[in-house]
């Protein structure tokens, strides 16, 4: 029996430690992991809990992240609660197996500490790896600070393992700005946290010898489409369970999570849509700008990145006063508009407000995003609103050295 870990009412934890404590409290059966900056302390912490008797499960050291996720798939198919952690290049190496995990409907929890993708090699935080996972069929939830990096994995087990969902879940946090920043965290006691997560209920487990099953079957043109459609429907139906779990978590802790977080949107004339640790910066800038210049700025943040909250984004942007929105993508777009821009625009197109929408690429490779820059971008949105049309290129770059870079102009007057 695992030992109880003594916790204070308030602890000072960074995002990595917070995530590792959540995995410990969930009493994961198998963690198969390979270390990579900046997520290493999550599995390092987990390994020490196993070694010191705080966990009854197994820690499997593997030869790569491909092996790590493969080990997770095997253990989950066998019938265990399974989790791991990774970042960046490790995430990229996992990608093939991520699709296996979701297609096989195995509710693995992957804590991802977001980091840029090479080349050039970079260990700092941006959202390239998170974006790389967006078509993989996983639920993706984003934590903006250490408290959330602790809370959301606990919710993730509940969501993914729910019998109506049975899908793997990623919980993201920003590399360094969240993973290595120590903040006050209010943890639950071990028994309270475990009771919230609940016992794992295996489904179609390979260790049931009375009912041998095939996992990972091959399907061709006669079966594949039906299976992928069923998988997609499970993902599209997941919001019901996500909302329920968040509501229950609020009842337990008082901390409220929503698939789309909105700040000061009720009367907003301009808005920023962004993810991760930048949300806090943007909210601070918006408050200051409202006070200093009376510009009514709101912030929208899709905490649940997948399934994309088309419904709630539409609701958040259907504000009669809203004129201009800037979607900020912290990932190199690779020859397109940023993903947030594309998806938020699609949702906003069917609103009555139908605001002007522009795109900023920012923060690549850990480039700082500060309050003053957030304010400058907000004021630029106000200029669009006042002019009645987009006064800049549609896609621009924030915090980039060199001649001004931008693409596409509006054809709407």
């Amino acid at each position: 029996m695992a030992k109880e870990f003594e916790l204070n009412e308030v602890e000072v934890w960074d995002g990595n430690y917070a995530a590792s404590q959540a995995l410990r409290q969930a009493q994961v059966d198998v963690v198969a992991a390979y270390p990579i900056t900046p997520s290493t302390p999550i599995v390092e912490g987990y390994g020490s809990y196993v070694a010191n008797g705080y966990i009854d499960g197994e820690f499997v050291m593997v030869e790569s992240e491909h092996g790590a996720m493969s080990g997770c798939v095997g253990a989950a198919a066998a019938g265990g609660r399974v989790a791991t952690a990774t970042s960046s290049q490790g995430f990229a190496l996992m990608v093939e197996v991520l699709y296996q995990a979701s297609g096989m409907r195995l509710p693995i929890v992957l804590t991802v500490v977001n980091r840029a993708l090479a080349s050039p090699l970079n260990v700092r935080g941006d959202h390239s790896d998170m974006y790389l996972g967006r078509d993989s069929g996983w639920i993706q939830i984003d934590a903006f600070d250490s408290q959330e990096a602790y809370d959301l994995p606990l919710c993730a087990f509940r969501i993914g393992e729910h019998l109506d969902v049975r899908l793997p879940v990623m919980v993201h946090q920003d590399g360094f700005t969240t993973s290595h920043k120590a903040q006050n965290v209010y943890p639950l006691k071990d028994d309270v946290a475990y009771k919230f997560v609940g016992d794992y209920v295996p489904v179609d487990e390979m260790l049931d010898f009375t009912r041998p099953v095939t996992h990972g079957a091959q399907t061709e043109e006669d079966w594949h489409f039906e299976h992928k459609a069923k998988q997609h429907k499970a993902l599209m139906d997941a919001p019901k369970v996500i909302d329920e779990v968040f509501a229950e978590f609020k009842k337990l802790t008082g901390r409220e999570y929503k698939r789309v977080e909105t700040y000061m949107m009720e009367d907003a004339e301009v808005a920023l849509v962004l993810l991760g640790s930048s949300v806090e910066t943007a909210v601070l800038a918006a408050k200051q700008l409202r006070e200093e210049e009376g510009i009514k700025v709101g912030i929208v943040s899709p905490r649940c990145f997948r399934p994309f909250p088309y419904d709630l984004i539409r609701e958040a942007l259907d504000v009669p006063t809203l004129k201009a929105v800037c979607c900020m993508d912290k990932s190199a777009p690779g020859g397109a508009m940023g993903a947030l821009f594309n998806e938020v625009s699609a949702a906003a197109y069917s609103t009555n407000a139908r605001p002007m929408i522009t795109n900023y690429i920012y923060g690549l490779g850990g480039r700082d995003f500060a309050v003053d820059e957030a304010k400058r971008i907000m004021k630029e949105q106000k200029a669009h609103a006042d002019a009645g049309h987009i006064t800049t290129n549609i896609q621009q770059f924030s915090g980039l050295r060199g001649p001004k870079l931008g693409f596409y102009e509006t054809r709407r007057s």
Partner: protein
Amino acid sequence: MSKGVLATDKRGMRELGAEDKVGWDEVTKGVVLDSFEGDASDVVHQKAEERHYTDFNSYTATVASWRIIKPVYNRDICIDCQNCWVWCPDTSIISRDKQMLGIDYDHCKGCGVCVEVCPTNPKSLLMFAEAEDNDEALAGWPQKEKKAK
């Protein structure tokens, strides 16, 4: 060829893809497929032909349509050493009570491993073109090779 090797055998009873097709709402979660009908606790003690395989177990399907060369088995030379049975990667050597019965042509992919590992002289298994008649293949079977001194 395999049909009738064991009277009760259900292997290769249908073409792959002949199973009933259902819509997305009826397919299993995660493409999990049952191997056996009912409680399979005792299946490990049963011989293949005694087991109740489901339609989604490839045992009951013909899954060798793309084989282009095939092993032919010569009972007259075989010493029942079971080497081919051990080495076959697709469990396509049919053997009961340590006696070799023949090739499961519904599952054999024609890799030739059984021929490679056959220790007799001449070999009891040889590869022939898929279209070649087995009786003709047996009629032209090579003679024992003399050891070079």
